[in-house]
């Protein structure tokens, strides 16, 4: 039986951790979650990123956030990965399976997957 007391345990666990968060993350994963993104299947893609980042313990390095319409609805679900100051990789028509691969190869391995990017889709 789930209870609110479990949240108190989560809080304790967080307090005991050495906190290295706010401002330390160097990589941002941004998922388009406007009407177009949602209709195209962005919700499971977003949830896959959240779960995989937590599972791989990348939480201190990677943040996952939601944004509105990027303006290229035909390519949704769109996921942008920002690293450092201005480096951006735009993945298009992303599925949960592709999201897992992006976490593995790009976020963990440091190598963007060229064939999933908008550059490849527009050829």
């Amino acid at each position: 039986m789930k209870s609110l007391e479990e949240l108190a345990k989560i809080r304790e666990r967080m307090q005991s951790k050495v906190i290295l968060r706010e401002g330390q993350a160097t990589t941002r994963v941004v998922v388009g979650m406007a009407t177009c993104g949602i209709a195209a299947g962005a919700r499971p893609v977003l949830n896959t990123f959240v779960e995989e980042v937590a599972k791989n313990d990348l939480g201190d390095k990677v943040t996952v956030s939601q944004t509105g319409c990027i303006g290229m609805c035909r390519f949704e679900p769109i996921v942008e990965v920002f690293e450092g100051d201005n480096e951006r990789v735009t993945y298009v028509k992303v599925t949960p399976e592709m999201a897992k691969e992006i976490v593995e190869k790009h976020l963990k391995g440091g190598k963007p997957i060229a064939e999933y990017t908008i550059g490849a889709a527009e050829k």
Partner: protein
Amino acid sequence: MKELSLNILDIAQNSITAEADLVEISLNETDTTLTLTVKDNGYGMSPEFLASVHDPFSTTRTTRKVGLGIPLLKLAAEQTDGYIDLRSTQRSADPENCGTVITAFFNKDHLDFTPIGDIVSTITTLLQGFPDIDYVFSHRIETGGAEKLIAIDTRDMRVILGDEVPLSDPMVLVWVKETLEEQYSAL
């Protein structure tokens, strides 16, 4: 939209855009009907915008001139011979009681009824994306004379979590998911 829960996720974002800090999502089900209500305390809509909001060419988005959130919900309701109803009070008119209430009524037996789908995932997605807002979710199911209630209120959670643990924390999201799934599986 393949699931009503996706329409709900989409509609709730309008409340967030309207600077609401409390969003209440309720589902009331009987054997044959479903009523969805999304209520917020955001800045509301002007009577002119309210009158035009069913029109896809009326939108707050800035990247293009088409907005499909409310029209898609309206379509989902009307294709079951249902309807939507929108009420809004602007902050400038009444700062204490401003906000918007959208109600959608569905006939579940209609061939074109869209299933609710993964509503738990819609709730966790909202918490993940907008953890500074409070959410009250309730799903009341009245079937065969018995009433069952699935509910979660992030204000209760926040009291325990304090300021240092956001609602978007992965452990908190897992807790919300498991809590709601447990309530649903007890039905």
